């Protein structure tokens, strides 16, 4: 997930007249709990994103239900799908149009590293969203399951507030005794 080494949120702001650390924490908590994603599905991962927003894996439990179509009102861009060279400037403009505290989730292998479409003679795709966007959370999978996207959003909340909502589940095979 790429967020293990995030610094603890700053307790005391150095040398400022009035301390707003507590207010910052509260604001971060509110920002984390109401992330409005931008409806921006490119390919197969978009269908999994719609499944996450649909009835069974309800994204609105975390306050992220309102899929805003316009970039002005959304604060989370989920890059869901392959980024072709023709589409890259479009994604860049969308990212610039979003108002400040904004985050990016790279959903799926294509957004992380070009995924299955990287081969030596390839001319058409940008290999990964982090080539031109500051990506906060990477959600691997092709396409990743809806639970993985929800885990990505919880990881993003962990990064924003420094506090994790649900305990991180350790994968099963680590506990079984060897041999």
């Amino acid at each position, binding site marked *: 997930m790429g967020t293990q080494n995030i610094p603890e949120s700053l307790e005391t702001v150095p040398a400022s007249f009035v301390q707003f650390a507590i207010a910052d924490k509260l604001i971060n908590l509110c920002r984390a709990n109401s992330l409005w994603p931008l409806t921006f599905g490119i390919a197969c991962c978009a269908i999994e994103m719609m499944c996450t927003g649909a009835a069974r894996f309800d994204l609105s439990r975390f306050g992220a239900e309102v899929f805003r179509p316009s970039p002005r009102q959304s604060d989370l861009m989920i890059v869901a799908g392959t980024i072709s*060279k*023709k589409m890259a400037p479009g994604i860049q403009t969308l990212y610039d149009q979003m108002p400040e505290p904004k985050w990016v989730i790279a959903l799926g292998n294509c957004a992380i590293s070009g995924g299955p479409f990287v081969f030596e*003679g*390839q*001319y*058409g795709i940008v290999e990964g969203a982090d080539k031109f966007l500051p990506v906060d959370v990477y959600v691997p999978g092709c396409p990743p399951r809806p639970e993985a996207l929800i885990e990505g959003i919880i990881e993003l909340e962990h990064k924003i507030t420094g506090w994790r909502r649900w305990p991180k589940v350790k994968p099963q095979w680590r506990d079984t005794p060897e041999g």
Partner: protein
Amino acid sequence: MSIEQKTRDALAPLFADQPPPEPPEPAGADESEKQAGPRPNGIIQQDYSARGFHLDVQIKSEQIVEAVKIMFELDYFLESITGVDWLKDDQLEVVYDFARYDFDLCRTVLRTRISRSEPSLPTITSVYTGASWHERETHDFFGIVFQGHPHLIPLLLPEDADFHPLLKDFKV
């Protein structure tokens, strides 16, 4: 009279000026089908279960519009236009697939071969309007210029693309 026969007779005048082709090859492709040079123009009956189409017609590139008009009257619809780059013969082959909406099944394939140095072909958008995207795409990938095409700009590649990726000698 079956639709295959009707299509054969309709397309026959295209080869009027040619010597009658020698007896059609045995249906079904035998393993070692090593043709000496590029195939002579003409109609070959193919076995549907082995190859997936019935009639395989090769014509000169100038007769394309005329042949496509005949297919349009015979109520075929254009499935797709494919480009193939035969590097060793130094030729580009363009394949037109036709199928029918009704139940008498006859998949027909029209082929032409043009040289790689100046790849140009008359457009068939005047007959099948749906061919304009197919032709633009073939132009994107192989650089074949379709004369008379109303809007020949790159369709799938970026607007300013000048490379043709599906050619065998394409380097990134």
